[in-house]
């Protein structure tokens, strides 16, 4: 299971680094927080020993919370009424789902939900091979929907946890997180992406420095290959791929914002530096991975044992995929440069400022986003009220009024919709009419005597040629009648037929010559009374 992973990362260098930085880093934001008069409880003056302990706990609580939806799947599966879900390991399927989504994420969009379900199906099917394919698909669908948390408005998860304020008060806070996120692609389709939390749950890399973690993973990979442990190497290669995806995702976000507006980006230093860094990174990764690829390809070709050969072949695929992702990233970086220049040209010739105006983004939107919900309602409503323009109250004009009055009302039949002539299917004719049933009832109510079936049949034959068949059927049905059923139905009497071994001699029927009698049913005691 995955729950072991997050702990390991709490002690990584990046983590402790950010903690060291935090006190100095905090003070301006804490001051900004103190600006609006409402926020007063969370103002922090200085960090203390209690707080340091507290943060460690908080971090672990959050890491723990990310795994909760997975456990929850298994806890709730028994409540599904459309499947015997105890046979499925839902947490396992969920991890596979996050895996599939993460792998399918690329630059433009995420994973198509139908595709993910399709890829999940073999894993689900492996757990319960005998179940129908439709059920496998539905289970996969259910798991994905639960990872998105489809029922909730925010489509995410929340968990409450407690912390101590500086003055030692215990307060409850809310941690919001998501596992699978639905995003809209440029073509309007909705795709799935794995959230950072999900990738962290999966890989166990909580807030690690993407780059260094990747380097570490690759060193490990090379070592493993050198020692010939290909199974582990495959695992490490996959981890490296997750980090590649994570890194690409971080860069994508930055490039997106860059393309949107480059006006105030520092063109002289910051952006070229950023691009250079990314390109250098890709170059080194590309070189490393090409080398690894060559090594494993050798290992694959030289391996004689089929199992190892297959492992090596799979590893080649994984590393090949890593390389492909880097190439993709590089293409994006080159494109970004061109976008920058085009934007730069456009901006440069836009002319001198004409008058002083408000910076809507920096002076209005961003401060509003930093306010709390209740306070932000004021300025946003003010902007809306003044920026929405004029509403013209609708007054019917004379022509409009005349038209309205002259429009014939919609025809509405007081009797409602015409009744559709139903298609009648032919009714199967009852074999025995009501008369026959009545006559058979008369015969089978022997007034307290036990009678032979042969006698009854003879009598019946005299009354009606069809009657013996009905009588025979009813008698056969009476063999082994249940008293309980009769009592439940509230029948006053019960027809009984008992086989005493006598053979029936009859031109039409064969079998035992049953003894037939009726018994009264006593409601309370359940004792039958055989006359």
């Amino acid at each position, binding site marked *: 299971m995955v729950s072991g992973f997050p702990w390991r990362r709490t002690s990584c260098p990046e983590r402790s680094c*950010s903690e060291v930085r935090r006190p100095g880093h*905090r003070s301006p934001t804490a*001051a900004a927080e103190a*600006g609006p008069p409402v*926020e007063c409880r*969370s103002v922090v003056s200085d960090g203390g020993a209690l707080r340091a302990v507290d943060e460690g706990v908080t971090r672990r609580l959050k890491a723990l919370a990310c795994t909760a939806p997975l456990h929850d799947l298994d806890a709730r599966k028994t409540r599904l009424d459309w499947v015997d879900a105890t046979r499925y390991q839902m947490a396992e399927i969920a991890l596979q789902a996050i895996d599939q989504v993460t792998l399918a994420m690329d630059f433009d969009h995420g994973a198509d*939900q139908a595709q993910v379900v399709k890829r999940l199906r073999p894993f689900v099917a492996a757990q319960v091979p005998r179940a129908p394919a439709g059920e496998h698909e539905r289970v996969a669908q259910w798991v994905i929907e639960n990872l998105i948390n489809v029922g909730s408005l*925010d489509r995410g998860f929340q968990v409450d*946890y407690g912390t101590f304020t500086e003055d030692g008060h215990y307060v*409850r*806070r*809310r941690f*919001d997180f998501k596992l699978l*996120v*639905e*995003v809209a692609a440029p073509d309007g389709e*909705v795709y799935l992406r794995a959230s950072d939390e999900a990738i962290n749950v999966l890989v166990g890399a909580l807030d690690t420095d993407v780059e260094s973690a990747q380097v570490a993973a690759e060193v490990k990979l090379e070592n493993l290959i050198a020692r010939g442990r290909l199974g582990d190497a495959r695992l490490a290669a996959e981890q490296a791929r997750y980090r590649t995806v994570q890194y690409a995702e971080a860069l994508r*976000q*930055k490039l997106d914002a860059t393309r*949107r*507006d480059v006006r*105030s*980006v*520092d063109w002289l230093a910051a952006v070229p530096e950023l691009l250079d860094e990314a390109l250098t990174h890709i170059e080194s990764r590309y070189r490393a991975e090409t080398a690894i690829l060559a090594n494993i390809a050798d290992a694959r070709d030289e391996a004689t044992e089929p199992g190892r050969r297959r492992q090596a072949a799979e590893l080649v695929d994984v590393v090949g995929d890593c390389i492909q992702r880097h190439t993709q990233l590089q293409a994006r970086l080159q494109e970004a440069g061109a976008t920058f220049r085009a934007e730069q040209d456009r901006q440069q010739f*836009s*002319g001198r*400022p004409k008058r002083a*105006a*408000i*910076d*809507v*983004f*920096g*002076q*209005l*939107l*961003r*401060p*509003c*986003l*930093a*306010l*709390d*919900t*209740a306070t*932000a309602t004021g*300025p*946003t*409503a*003010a*902007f*809306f*009220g*003044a*920026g*929405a*323009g*004029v*509403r*013209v109250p609708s007054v019917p004009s004379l022509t409009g009024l005349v038209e309205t009055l002259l429009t014939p009302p919609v025809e509405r039949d007081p009797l409602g919709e015409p009744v559709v002539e139903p298609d009648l299917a032919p009714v199967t004719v009852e074999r025995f009419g009501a008369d026959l049933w009545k006559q058979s009832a008369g015969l089978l109510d022997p007034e307290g005597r036990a009678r032979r079936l042969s006698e009854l049949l003879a009598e019946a034959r005299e009354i009606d040629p069809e009657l013996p068949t009905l009588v025979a059927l009813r008698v056969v049905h009476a063999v082994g009648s249940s008293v309980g059923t009769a009592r439940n139905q509230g029948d006053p009497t019960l027809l009984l037929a008992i086989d005493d071994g006598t053979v029936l001699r009859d031109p039409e029927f064969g079998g035992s010559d049953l003894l037939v009698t009726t018994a009264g049913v006593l409601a309370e005691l359940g004792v039958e009374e055989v006359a």
Partner: protein
Amino acid sequence: MTREIQPQDVESAARLVAHGMRPKALPSRDAGYAELVRRYRDDDGFADTVQRVAAGLGLVVLAVGPQSGIVLAAVEESVFEIRMDEYARRTVLQNRQTDKMLHGLAHLAAAALAFPRPDDLGDDSYVGRVSVDQVDGAVREACRALEERTAGEADPLSDAPQLEAAWRAWLRRPEATATKDGRAGEATTRGIVGKALRFLADQGFLVAVGAEGGVYRTTPRYQVQVRELAAQRAFDELLQLGALPVATAGGALRAPNAQGLEAPDV
């Protein structure tokens, strides 16, 4: 120089005001309208009459120009005023305040993306372009920047949702949800932004560009409306709250981490 106001002048003035109430009417398409606009600009007496007619109706004349035509705004409590309560009517009661705030933010963000720099807002010849994608993306980016800046800051208190920061509310809302009929979910941020842009287009502030829809260009009316009134009102509100940062000439809409995103100095 004062001059007697003739009754027919009042009629003309009222007609000009009436033109302003048709969001899509433009002087360039209507010779009569263009003539009234020209007269407003040349004749102070007529301009005064127009303003008085508007004032009597509960309107303010923001600008009169050959491109924008007459741009009107409703004063508070006027019959012409559009209230947020009416606009964001179809929301669940429980989230009403958050939803209203998100709708307001969407309008603010639409204006911010339409006029990214102060210069763009000031330049009469500037035509901005906005799309749902762009607006939601920029707000999310800004939210992420705030999230980064407040990294390590405590999560919101669970028993006081109204104290939650606005950016958290936006980030938490999904950007899109898959619905059965293939339309964007209304409660998503893209749904909210989409509604804002469609509304602005209906009000004659934006014009849809391109065949596939979703991309709009701004009209001079919108620029005037934002510059002369809306931005000022929101600015005043924020000033009262003491939440205003110092402006820079370049505008503050930046790429993430490119040494922008400095803390707004209070």
